[in-house]
């Protein structure tokens, strides 16, 4: 059985339109005007067990609407959806025992209390037997290296520590599917990497299906095996990350600063986006020119003071995807 099956899934919101001025407000009191917003339009989506899916797209693309339909918070207008064979809206309570959720922006931990208390409470809410819960907390504590954090109030933790606790909290009832909404938002590089490894290990060790939304190309590249790109409520791309990586995640942004005046001649595969004073911003196509080569080329061009290498932002990658789709469609 597939973990998630959605066919021709659509969701339309009705929002109240507020006219300008007093007269419009008065009219709206008696005859409110509504506008329909198409949030999700006939999505087809099948996720087999053990998959790690990245669900990406710009803000307002329909990501969270889709997750809300999968978790039973929103009722679709049309189409069918089954999660673990259950109807999410009608069997929300039953389904909730089988899914875990982490929302990077919304904590499920009690802010003023140490995480142990939240873990115990969540265990009770999910009807985990006390003996089993104890063992699981011990296991997760070891796996997520929470030993030193267990009796620290959540408010005194760093964001990275908190997110580690959040992920651990969402696993207490051993969900079959884990929904992660922007799990690495605001984290520094090292912590991001640690969280990514934890998620990947979880998938490998327990076979947990992962459904992850992110703005971070790194999350997609390092964690997921399959990427689904959504925009304006439609799925525009659904392919293995390997292919996505080859097609779209092959660009790096390099910011370089020299100690003295220098002259950078553009080479094939390197585009100088900006030059000002002693610094430059380059967009490198790593298929044509691997990073190592670029580095030695830069060092050869002058005395380098500083180099940073970054992934292009998700928005840019998506723009690239759209433009290539348009070309393909035309």
């Amino acid at each position, binding site marked *: *059985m597939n*973990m998630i099956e959605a066919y021709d899934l659509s969701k339309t*919101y*009705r929002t109240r339109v507020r006219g300008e001025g007093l007269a419009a407000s008065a009219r709206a009191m008696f005859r409110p005007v509504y506008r329909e917003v198409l*949030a999700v339009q006939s999505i087809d989506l099948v996720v087999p*067990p053990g998959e790690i899916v990245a669900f990406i797209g710009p803000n307002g693309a329909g990501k969270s*609407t889709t997750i*809300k339909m999968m*978790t*039973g*918070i*929103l*009722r679709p207008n049309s189409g069918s959806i*089954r999660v*673990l*064979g*259950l109807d999410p*809206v009608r069997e*929300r*309570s*039953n389904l*909730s*025992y*089988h*899914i875990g*959720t982490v*929302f990077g922006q*919304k904590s*499920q931990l*009690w802010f*003023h*209390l140490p995480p142990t*208390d*939240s873990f*115990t*409470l969540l265990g*009770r*809410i*999910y*009807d*985990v*037997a006390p003996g*089993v819960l104890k063992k699981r907390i011990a296991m997760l504590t070891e796996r997520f290296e929470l030993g030193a954090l267990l009796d620290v*109030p959540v408010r005194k933790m760093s964001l990275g520590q908190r997110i580690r606790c959040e992920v651990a909290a969402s696993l207490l*009832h*051993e969900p*079959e599917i884990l929904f992660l909404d922007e799990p690495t938002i605001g984290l520094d590089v090292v912590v991001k990497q640690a969280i990514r490894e934890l998620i990947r290990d979880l998938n490998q060790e327990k076979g947990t299906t992962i459904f992850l939304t992110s703005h971070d190309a790194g999350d997609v590249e390092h964690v997921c095996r399959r990427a689904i790109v959504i925009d304006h409520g439609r799925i525009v791309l659904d392919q293995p990350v390997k292919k996505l990586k080859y097609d779209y995640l092959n660009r790096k942004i390099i910011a370089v600063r020299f100690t003295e005046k220098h002259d950078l001649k553009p080479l094939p595969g390197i585009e100088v986006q900006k030059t000002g004073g002693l610094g430059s911003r380059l967009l490198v196509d790593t298929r044509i020119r691997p990073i190592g080569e670029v580095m030695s080329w830069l060092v050869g061009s002058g005395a380098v003071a500083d180099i940073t290498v970054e992934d292009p932002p998700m928005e840019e990658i998506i723009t690239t995807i759209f433009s290539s789709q348009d070309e393909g469609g035309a």
Partner: protein
Amino acid sequence: MPANPQGQVAVPDHKRWGADRGPVLKLGKYLAIAKINLHQAIVYRSNVLGGLLFYALFIFVFFSLWRAIYHGGEVQGYSLRQVVWYLCITELLVFGCRTPVFTQMNEDIKTGALAYQLIRPCHYVAYQFAGAVGRMVFNLVCFGILAVVLGMVMVGPLPDYALTTLPLGILSACLGLVINFFLLMCLGLTAFRLEENGAFYLVYQKLVFMLGMFIPLEFLPGWLQRIARWLPFPYVAWAPARLLVAFSWPLFWQILPLQVFWAAIAIGLSLLLYRQGMRGLQANGG
């Protein structure tokens, strides 16, 4: 993934520990919620200090006022001692045990935070109530001790007080707290439909204040008393306070069924409003 022929997911036994243990275990879940709220209230115990100070000040001001008004004797069946204890109790129930349920509901509904509660296997309304009970226990102890101390210092114990009726008064007080909580929850739940519902809260507060919290119902003009007795508001503060300072069996049998009635109405209405609101939410988003 184990699935039965209907495509239903079979819940593994180790998971649904509570599945077949029925309501007792469900209660255990909500007890755990009450406990963590109590725990948090204890951790943040200094929060209660300002309230205690205000409580003491308020009682003292009204004690002085009543002392100036009373020249011995009784007013509408209340002696000075009784009226001061009355005030200590109503303030304890309404001010001391106040919960932010109205603002909480409003916020959860308007910010969409409610959605995050829905993905857990517990009922949102029960979750809120259990949490409030946890916090109330703490406040009830703190303000309760202060209330008794203030009453004892200012007017001393009530003469010939029948301690055996105390549990009945406490029962009535619990019902009063339940009515208050669920009426406020109903008002908070109107946020599903209305963008601006703050006025309800203000009006409600004033009604509870005027119809029992500030002065005994018996002090009001006859026609107003008669109307008030048909409304739920006096059963929040007046009913328990009256039973605690001047218990009588006929009054008890008159008040208690009405309290149970209003509690049932308030709970039922909360659940109804919640269910309707949820339907709207599922259809239209936050």
